[in-house]
């Protein structure tokens, strides 16, 4: 666990954390595995969102901290100037990593 800035976090061991959360996250990993298998079985072109998901998955195992923050930054629009006009109201969840540069994580 990262150092708590004001000692609010109770003491927890890795085992206690696994006791509480392992089954839930075991299921989520299987969901991702089955999703990637589903994508493989489907026809058509590769999708940039799935490509962005694969890059994010690689960050999970790079041994560095703050994975959630770094994945959110990876998927974020890194430009800083307002766009000319909003052509849609929604958001898709990630930018197209193949068409963007300078995304240091």
């Amino acid at each position, binding site marked *: *666990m*990262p150092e*708590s*800035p*004001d000692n*609010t*976090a*109770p003491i*927890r061991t890795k085992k206690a954390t696994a006791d*509480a*959360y392992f089954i839930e996250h075991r299921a989520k990993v299987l969901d991702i595995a089955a999703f990637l298998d589903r994508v493989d079985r489907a026809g058509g072109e590769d999708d940039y969102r799935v490509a962005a998901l694969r890059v994010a998955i690689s960050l999970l195992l790079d041994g560095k901290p*703050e994975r*959630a*923050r770094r994945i*959110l*930054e990876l*998927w*974020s*629009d*890194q*430009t*800083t100037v*307002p*766009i*000319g*006009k*909003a*052509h*849609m*109201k*929604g*958001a*898709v*969840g*990630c*930018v197209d990593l193949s068409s963007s540069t300078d995304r240091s994580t």
Partner: protein
Amino acid sequence: MYIDPHVHMVSRTTDDYVRMARAGCVAITEPAFWAGYDRSSVGGFFDYFRLLTDFEPRRAAQFGIRHHTWLCINSKESEDVGLSREVLGIIPQFLDAPNVLGIGEIGLNKNSRNELLILEEHIALAAKYQQMILIHTPHLEDKLKGTILIMDAIKAHGGISAGRVLIDHVEEHTVKPVLDRGYWCGMTLYPDTKCTPQRAVDIIEMYGNERIWMNSAGDWGHSDPLAVPKAQMEMRRRGHFESLVHKITFENPRSFLSQSAKFSAQPLTPTAADVTR
């Protein structure tokens, strides 16, 4: 006992009020937002503001929940500058209503020039009428950029104190920049987007418990009006003290919101059903 400081009851049922009251909800604040479709005229907003300032507080009171609200035109509709300015023009006549706490939820959606222009005009309106501000930050890939643009716009105005602004929907990549600039921040608990209860509690453990709250932002989308009590359960499951659970889900929102004398989280006796109108 808890406060849900961001929930769109206009799109929730009366059963949700019952369940929230049973789970310990004593007060809520409901920001004006997008209805799921673009309203066709300023009259649509006039009626929406009547609902937020008149009908909805009476409906909530039947379950002992104190209802407060924030007024604006949402950034999803502010691409239409003409309509936005008409709506800005009718807001002042509602600001003295007993449950209006300020201007919100304003902000950006796709980070466009017109959205930014109308955000700046809302900020100026809040400054002119000395109103607090509740900020909506954009969704998903647009959030990081939008959060920075919004904070820059507030700073550029110069007339708004950071302590009177709450920047909502923060996640792991935006919470620190918001807190570092002196603003309050909100974590929205959604099933798929924004924060899960687990991640929200992680954020408290990593970034502290000052100037931060949690809300359900329950609306017409995939959301959960009982998300705050579920996050309370998550904190207890991890062994957090009851005092911290109370601070995050009651004292912190009360501290921020009490900057308006109109806010109250005092116990409210449920009123009779509103059958005579």
